[in-house]
């Protein structure tokens, strides 16, 4: 019997007069105290029947798509409830997971191989039994190999989708020609002062700083030049946005005319009728997202959910809902009509057209660059 049923039965007894209010409150209090005391030891009881799995993702249209096309049908089929939480950024979420008890968080929609590597460095990886996830055979090998390079003996995640952080611009004020001509440097173009935005994420700022100074983002030779570009952008920008919802609002309300943005969110704006262009500059920021199973989670229930989510019908429906191409190999699976029109879609299944962050390089510089960005952002 789950806790909800127990509570409902108690409440029914109270309402029927079988239980007085004092006893009812006493039992509820005792249950709360018992739960609080047993929580640290709950990890030793993972063998019990799993009735729910926690999933954390990016919120907004992404979470809506997951809920509608994956979680609800999964619950209807298996009886296992998916509790979905959201986070505004991977750093915030990792901080929460680090502060949690094992098993408290189960599956996360993580972005980038660098995130996978970070979780591994914090000893948060699990070992998936791929025999329980037969739909993994439909996934692009290019995506799986990136994770296998970090954890060669086993995988802790399945690739799920990919996208890019390209340039989003309001066509009312910036033409396609101007965007193609200026590329990433449009974000440090004084002609658009006060109408420029940017994500408050140090990786994105450094990546675009590298592009603006004609450097390879995975092999920056002059970091001071990058910081100067970040400073230029800071002085011209109106606002650093902190979430996908804020990005969409700033563009839709015309507070800003140009920013870098997440491909799926920009596609959503276009679908809403806003005349927003999207351009991936050469060496634009590509990323792949995965469904990461955190150490201490109920593995079989998680594997079942992952397999369900990788099923072509589910995966395509989610991809169409969240506007990011799925990890399914387009040479093996017919992805329908909409997905090939999504930004960053690669029909070859090799993803050779996208540049991904080198996890070793970026994680190796994280401590230094994230702190320096905090200073640069404040005028230093």
């Amino acid at each position, binding site marked *: 019997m789950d806790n909800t049923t127990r509570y409902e039965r108690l409440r029914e007894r109270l309402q029927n007069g079988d239980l007085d209010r004092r006893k009812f409150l006493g039992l509820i209090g005792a249950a709360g105290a018992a739960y609080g005391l047993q929580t640290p030891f709950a990890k030793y009881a993972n063998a019990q029947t799993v009735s729910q799995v926690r999933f954390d993702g990016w919120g907004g249209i992404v979470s809506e798509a997951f809920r509608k096309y994956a979680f609800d049908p999964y619950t209807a089929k298996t009886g296992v409830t998916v509790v979905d939480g959201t986070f505004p950024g991977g750093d915030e979420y990792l901080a929460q997971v680090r502060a949690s008890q094992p098993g408290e968080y189960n599956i996360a929609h993580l972005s980038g191989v660098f995130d996978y590597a970070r979780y591994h460095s914090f000893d948060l990886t699990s070992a998936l039994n791929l025999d329980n996830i037969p739909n993994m055979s439909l996934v692009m090998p290019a995506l799986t190999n990136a994770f296998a390079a970090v954890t060669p003996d086993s995988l802790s995640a399945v690739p799920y989708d990919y996208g890019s952080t390209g340039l989003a611009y309001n066509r009312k004020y910036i033409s396609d020609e101007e965007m193609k001509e200026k590329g990433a440097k449009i974000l440090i173009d004084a002609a658009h002062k006060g109408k420029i935005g940017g994500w408050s994420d140090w990786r994105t700022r450094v990546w675009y700083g590298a592009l603006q100074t004609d450097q390879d983002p995975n092999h920056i030779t002059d970091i001071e030049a990058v910081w100067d570009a970040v400073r230029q952008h800071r002085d011209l920008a109106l606002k650093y946005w902190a979430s996908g919802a804020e990005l969409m609002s700033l563009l839709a309300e015309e507070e800003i005319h140009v920013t870098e943005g997440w491909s799926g969110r920009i596609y959503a704006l276009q679908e809403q009728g806003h005349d927003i262009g999207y351009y991936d500059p050469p060496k634009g920021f590509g990323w792949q997202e995965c469904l990461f199973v955190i150490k201490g989670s109920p593995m079989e229930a998680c594997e079942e959910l992952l397999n369900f989510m990788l099923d072509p019908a589910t995966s395509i429906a989610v991809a169409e809902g969240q506007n990011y191409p799925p990890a399914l190999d387009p040479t093996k699976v017919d992805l329908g009509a909409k997905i090939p029109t999504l930004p960053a879609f690669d029909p070859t299944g090799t993803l050779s057209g996208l540049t991904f962050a080198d996890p070793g390089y970026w994680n190796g510089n994280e401590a230094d660059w994230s702190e320096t960005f905090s200073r640069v952002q*404040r005028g230093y």
Partner: protein
Amino acid sequence: MTIESREKRQPWILLSPALTAVTLLLIVPLLFIVVYSFWLRSAAGADTPGFYVDNWQKVLTDRFYRDILLNTLKIAAITTAVCAVMGYPAAYFIARSRGNKLILLVLLMLPFWISYIIRTMSWINILGISGALNSALLALGIISEPIQMLYNEVTVILGLVHFLLPFMVLNIYVSLEGIDTNLEDAANSLGATRWQSFIQVTLPLSLPGLAAGGLLCFVLGAGTYITPVILGGPRDAMFANLVFEAIIRQLNWPLGSALSLALLAVLGALVLIYNRYLGMAQLAKGLG
């Protein structure tokens, strides 16, 4: 057990739930933070336990942290001053009103029923390019193009004033309510004008409330981080934003712990100074 010893134990028995909660939920976590502040962040992976003064050295000697702290105190001081100037007349009006005092107090409390984040975000709909104010000014022909009003230090202060003004009004109101109005009448009967009686009688007697409201506004204002994130520009930040960034964005919990303790020390010192000269009783009245 004698009655005397029972009476001695009784307050401690009554206090024990609160003391347990304060110990477990405040003092113990605070001790963890103190311990953490002496650890070191590793380049990747788990932090290095030990006794290292590096974080404290950085916090106490780095100009960056000092400048942001001073800027935070400046913003908190401006916010407090604006709240005092705006809050005093409102509190005076409520305290001296006759029939509708309850309605006015309910109106004052209404904003607390809405999330602070939602209240802060509402300014985007008011001051944004396509917000209510720009739309009205455009419709009236006063401006030909929308004015960029958001995302600067002024809007950060505006958001903080919006958040903190009720705290100031309530504290001053409580203080004014405790003043015997016969004193003003006596001053008037002795030849003082209404303005003179206010300046020489009412204002000095209400200063403890003003100070209590000021302390609350200052401490809450200096500790906020949401308002600059929502209403500030790229450069705008307060000290709490650095704590957030160190702990959440940079995953540097040891440095974040040292930063948060530094902020706690500065604000704690302010509270101690207040307590030394004015006492905490007035603050408790206002909060009650």
